[in-house]
């Protein structure tokens, strides 16, 4: 495999890097805008002609962004809720995805469509009745509700796992069955490790959804147990509830930092998957 790269291949590589840099530049523009805004003072936000870069960068916006919403406290809430949700959700989705992919049962297609259709029901339809049910069973304002909520998995992830499982030939399980392993052993020892990539992707999505979920925490939790996502939206306002865009942008940086770190760490793990090029070995 260690052939010298031909000139053609080298050229292709350079072109690739240039295109990527261009893409990144375009994608980066709004982020640049975000950073620049976070350093402006309130008076510099709306003037005309516009302030392109603030004369004196207001680094204390970053301090204000932290203290204004008591970041530490809500950070903890967010971590708790995200963990409570992500772990059961990934497991539950993986189970269900495997079930839908592998077991040829007559009603499978119907149930799968039923599951998909729950995704299609606009969430507002179920919001009020769900709230009613949850508060009647005494789970309103309880953070561990998210564990129960996560166990059912998410249709998006169930679908994802199903697609992943469908790329694995049946032969894998057949050989294990012949050797006498039961379903669960097959699942945990063989199938689950094979979809590590999907597990990581699912974990990234589930973590992120729960981290940025606004509607459920704000409905089900009272003020102190609420998550960062809620504080981000509600917290950076002045006395008359007008949004402070400059401090808000700094707040976004703080808010996304944990997810960026989680993502960066996790995505290295599926480099391994990419390099090995698939399922062999």
């Amino acid at each position: 495999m260690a052939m010298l790269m031909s000139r053609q291949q080298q050229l292709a590589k350079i072109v690739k890097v240039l295109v990527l840099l261009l893409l990144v530049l375009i994608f980066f523009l709004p982020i640049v805008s975000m950073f620049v805004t976070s350093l402006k003072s309130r008076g510099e936000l709306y003037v005309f002609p516009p302030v392109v870069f603030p004369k004196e960068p207001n680094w204390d916006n970053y301090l204000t962004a932290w203290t204004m919403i008591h970041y530490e406290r809500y950070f903890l809430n967010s971590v708790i809720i995200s963990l409570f949700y992500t772990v059961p959700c990934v497991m539950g989705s993986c189970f269900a995805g495997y079930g839908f992919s592998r077991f040829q049962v007559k009603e499978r297609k119907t149930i799968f469509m039923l599951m998909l259709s729950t995704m299609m029901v606009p969430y507002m339809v179920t919001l009020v009745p769900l709230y009613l049910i949850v508060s009647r069973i005494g789970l309103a304002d309880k953070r561990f509700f998210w564990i129960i909520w996560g166990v059912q998995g998410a249709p998006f992830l169930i679908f994802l796992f199903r697609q992943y499982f469908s790329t694995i030939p049946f032969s894998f399980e057949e050989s294990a069955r012949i050797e006498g392993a039961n379903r669960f052993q097959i699942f945990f020892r063989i199938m689950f490790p094979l979809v590590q990539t999907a597990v990581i992707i699912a974990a990234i999505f589930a973590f992120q959804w729960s981290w940025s979920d606004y509607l459920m925490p704000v409905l089900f939790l009272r003020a102190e147990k609420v998550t960062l996502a809620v504080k981000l939206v509600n917290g950076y306002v002045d006395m008359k509830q007008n949004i402070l865009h400059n401090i808000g942008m700094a707040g976004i940086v703080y808010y996304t930092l944990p997810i960026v770190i989680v993502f960066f760490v996790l995505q290295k793990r599926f480099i391994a998957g990419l390099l090995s090029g698939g399922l062999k070995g």
Partner: protein
Amino acid sequence: MKLLKTGLFMAFFLLAALAVFAGGGQEAKGPVTLTFMVHAADLPEEFIDKWNAANPDINLVRVEENFEKWVADAMVGTAPDLRQLGLGSDTPYYARRGLFLDITDYLEKSEVIKMDDIDPLGNGHYRWDGTESGKGAWYGLTKDYNNIGALTYNVEMFNKAGLAKLSETNPITYQNDLYELGKKLSVKDSSGNVVIWGYEIGSDWIEFLASDMAYAEGTNFYSDKLMSKMNEDPKMRDIWKYWTRFYTEDISSNVRNPAAGWTGAAFQSDRVAICQLGYWFGAQMQSNPGYNEKYAWAPTPILRTGSKRYTNTLGATGTVIYAKTKYPNQAFKVFEWYTAGEYGLDRAKTGWGIPAVFSLRKYLPEDNKFNKSRKDIAFEDAKYFVPWMASSLIKGQEPWAGGWNESIDDLVLGKIDADTFIDRFYAYLNKELQAGKQELGL
């Protein structure tokens, strides 16, 4: 990694199952817990702690202010005990549907709030007698109120345009002065984009200002006693048409010339010459350097020369108690404390609004020309407050803003004319009014 994950999952599942069956967490018996839905800025933590320390039998908990949550709670019957109502002008709508507690008796017996200390005009929107606002039962009190019709203007821009400062005692007129001033103060650049808006309409408060004008003109929003149909009286239509001119002639921001940020922010960034926001805006302006010299105040305009003065509070932000609260007595105690107790006092000193009770008025700041003039103008305007022409069939602001905004872009872009716009505006509101009528079985 995966074993850990599986293990964690099992543990959580077991824990959760156990917890649900162990009777999901009741509040401890003993102190009563009251929930108060209010913004963090309007009830800081120190004050909640102070209350809880001083009142061990009432545990006050703040709930994040969220409109959807409140509606959902009200629909299932678990609304927070106290709520900060953004617009007092919504009171007839909710009171009629049995969501607010009638606190007249409590007020009459209160030690902290004296009935004759309550400013009846400023708090007028929180009273409703079944038909009209401003009289009858009390459903709440304002946190503080403001004369939203007062003009704040940029003196430098006036000087540049060669215009004299406005009188602080004699109001100008809508018909003759405001429109002309707005036109003269607007500045456009070479490509026709607006650089300075002469007069910026405060975010769809048109219906409140139109109400003042209707009183002065002797006409009414509605054509029937039930307040269920819009009034086709030409005088009323002309009042609505008056406001459209600001949009079509680019004196205010519109779809062609969108303003970044809201009216106040644009004004503070020196892109607006005149705005009508009210007393409280002066407190917001303190962050602009040199505000004392650069900006000035004028009283709420009158309709035309010789018209009577009518002014408005927009309803004012205030506190209400949920009708189905389990602990009305305790809730009222919190209510008293919030409106007129220690926290009310603290608020008055900041100059963010005129207090609901007369006795707290002396604490308003008057340290410089700017603050003194806005205070004096506010007290004077307060003598002419009238309740806005609310119909209890629909809500305070939302249907009006919705109806206006639905068609205003077409008007600005020239696709329809002013009469068609008013027709569509009326059609939208009539639809809402009819729905309200059916709902209440009238």
